[in-house]
């Protein structure tokens, strides 16, 4: 007999999802001007969770007006007063964290152990952290009394719906801006629950506006003439469009785009921990992470040993019901995303890379993709160049530190990288040469509100998090 874990599902009863939701404008839930709605589904079961109002151009205009009106009072508040609201929001998030974790898992498809242990603690931490900055802006290094920009138009992706909301809204509010935020069409629910939290916290009307919708709504937010600041996290293709739209206007812009992070393992690395770091780097949130370590660069001398260890480890990953507390790998966020991953993986195979997945049974409904390794990959393969945004790892090798650096930097992207070695001097030497916004050493995918995050090259510009994150929302 083997040790089979009995199902340990988290209860859904804690979250009460209404059959329909409106747009959140000026402190009220309202219908879309043209009455349009769309459905949001659970990617693990394809069950319809709720029907959500779909914002259009007229709604964006309404929301921006509300935010503009609220800006006068909000920006005039002493920093300590704004901090009170942010602290209150942070505490409510902590109190409701289990509810929000279950909701996020239902709407996004990621495992409950990630929403519970990673997303929600970080969401609360971001609000706490930026609450602390609200009354200290004069001392943040941007000159005396830096001023807010005005109305911030923010568009966020579906991979970390609530966390990306926190990364955007917390610094915007702390610095005195008001917000119009468009969550992704596949994951609008936690943002709408956040709207409710704003009301619970007594946040003045119009300071935060939430407009679920599709790309057209996002485009309307970005191009609205009365928006002073645009912040976008998402694909590089859309980021380029936004840059074109914003060019020539006085709007400030930050972009957090795609990535093809290199995870470099030297032959003196702590192997067992490196294996964990590789797994965390590419299979966290099913690889739907812009800073995922999707390119493994392993020193040739330990390639065989490391691959063996990695395959053994992948065979113990548990894929299935995201609400089960023992699930490691959940569902892919949407049918569209699954199709994209599938196409790129098939292309990898067609180009001659060697494909491997552990034996694992995929559920019959929902969107699923088995953890996948590609070996015999070269820099010339598509799977080594394009961002796949799924649980697909490309393995390349190198012989010398210089070669590792050259290969790691040989990408249009530059968001993240990892270095695995027991030699401290090598960590410093290599990290200094990598063109990536974040370089982790002997760890991967670690986030903290105090440390800035952002990219080089096609991974975007501007920084979120930390003191640097304030700059994007201040007139400096």
């Amino acid at each position, binding site marked *: *007999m*083997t*040790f*089979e*874990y*009995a*199902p*340990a599902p988290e209860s859904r009863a804690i979250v009460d999802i209404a059959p329909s939701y409106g747009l959140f404008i000026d402190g009220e839930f309202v219908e879309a001007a043209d009455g349009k709605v769309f459905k949001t589904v659970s990617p693990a079961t394809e069950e319809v969770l709720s029907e959500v109002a779909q914002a259009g151009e007229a709604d964006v205009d309404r929301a921006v007006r509300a935010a503009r009106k609220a800006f006068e009072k909000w920006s005039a508040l002493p920093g300590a007063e704004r901090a009170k609201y942010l602290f209150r929001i942070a505490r409510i998030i902590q109190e409701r964290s289990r509810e929000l974790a279950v909701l996020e898992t239902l709407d996004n498809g990621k495992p409950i*152990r990630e929403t519970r*242990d990673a997303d929600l603690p970080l969401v609360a931490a971001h609000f706490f952290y930026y609450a602390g900055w609200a009354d200290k802006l004069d001392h943040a290094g941007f000159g005396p009394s830096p001023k807010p920009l005005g109305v911030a138009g923010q568009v966020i992706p579906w991979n970390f719906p609530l966390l990306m909301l926190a990364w955007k809204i917390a610094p915007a509010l702390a610095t005195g801006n008001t917000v119009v935020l468009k969550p992704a069409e596949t994951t609008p629910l936690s943002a709408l629950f956040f709207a409710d939290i704003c009301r619970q916290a007594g946040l003045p009307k119009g300071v935060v506006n939430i407009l679920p919708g599709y790309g057209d709504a996002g485009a309307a937010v970005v191009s609205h003439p009365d928006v002073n600041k645009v912040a976008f996290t998402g694909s590089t293709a859309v980021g380029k469009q936004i840059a074109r739209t914003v060019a020539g206007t006085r709007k400030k812009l930050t972009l957090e785009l795609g990535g093809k992070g290199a995870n470099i393992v030297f032959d*003196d*690395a*702590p*192997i*067992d*921990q490196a294996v*964990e*770091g590789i797994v965390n780097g590419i299979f966290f949130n099913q690889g739907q992470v812009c800073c995922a370590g999707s390119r493994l660069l392993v020193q040739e001398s330990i390639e065989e*040993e490391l691959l063996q260890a990695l395959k053994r480890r992948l065979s*113990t990953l548990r894929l299935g019901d995201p609400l089960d*507390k*023992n699930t490691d790998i959940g569902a892919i966020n949407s049918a569209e995303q699954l199709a994209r991953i599938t196409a790129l993986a098939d292309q990898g195979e067609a180009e001659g890379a060697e494909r491997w997945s552990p034996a694992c049974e995929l559920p019959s409904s929902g969107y699923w993709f088995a953890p996948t390794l590609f070996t015999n990959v070269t820099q010339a393969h598509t799977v080594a160049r394009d961002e796949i945004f799924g649980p697909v790892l490309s393995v390349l090798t190198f012989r010398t530190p210089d070669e590792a650096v050259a290969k790691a930097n040989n990408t249009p992207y530059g968001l993240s990288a990892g270095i695995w070695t*027991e030699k401290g001097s090598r960590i410093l030497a290599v990290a200094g040469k990598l063109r990536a916004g974040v370089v982790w050493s*002997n*760890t991967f995918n670690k986030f903290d509100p105090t440390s800035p995050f952002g990219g080089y090259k096609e991974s975007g510009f501007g920084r979120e998090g930390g003191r640097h994150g304030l700059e994007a929302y201040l007139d400096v």
Partner: protein
Amino acid sequence: MPTTAHTLTDVAASDSTLRRFLHGLPGVDAVGLEARAASLGTRSIKTTAKAYAIDLAISMVDLTTLEGADTPGKVRALGAKAVHPDPTDRTAPATAAVCVYPDMVAAAKQAVAGSTVKVASVATAFPAGRAPLSVKLADVREAVAAGADEIDMVIDRGAFLAGRYMKVYDEIVAVKEACGTSARLKVIFETGELSTYDNIRRASWLGMLAGADFIKTSTGKVAVNATPANTLLMLEAVRDFRAQTGVQVGVKPAGGIRTSKDAIKFLVLVNETVGADWLDNHWFRFGASSLLNDLLMQRQKLATGRYSGPDYVTVD
């Protein structure tokens, strides 16, 4: 691994080859190791899986009494409990062994006669190990002669920390020889005193190279004993050792594991690190005395739906 099975035979040729080998093992990143152990600790083990795990854990317990005040009577009571841990429920599995000082082996042997329960003895000047090798070997021989099925030896931590690996190696080889063919050898590292994870990995390989049948974390007599992290590390070592030599070695965390919840976390470590091959009491043990009663109370709770209490399990 830094070497192949072919060269492993030469590893213990001299002090310097042994040192070079042990220091060539992959390093251990403490933060990463502890994070992995903690993340496996969040596995949620419910209902049938929990019942299975509790019975498995009971069958892996080395029921231990290591007090200066031990008497034949106390050892007899312990033996009876090892054979039938729950007097109210004869379906409860027997423990793996009773573990006693060498002078109590004969009494223990008698107490468990006719059952599957083994008798283990902590020989080699337990727990400090600060005695001449001749004394340690005599200790072992006495215990084996009295019928011990297993010998738990402590390594010379002083020699290990001084970098005299060959001395530690030679002692283990000598003790293994003294165990003969009848007794299995468990080698105790006292991981709390080795202090770094790199040292624990080196000690694990040293013990296995010298012929240990089991590697064991600690004596239970110091401040830091078995932890999820050091046990995970030792599991990785036995896994890698088998991959390289084909020889399977058992693992025994000892000391500080008191609750069923803790024990189940260790079983999850075993399950997800080395798998089913180690999930029985020939290859994995718990060195714990107070753990058994908590396992029994949890077992009763699963059977009846109610918590009983300490008076519904025996004191020893």
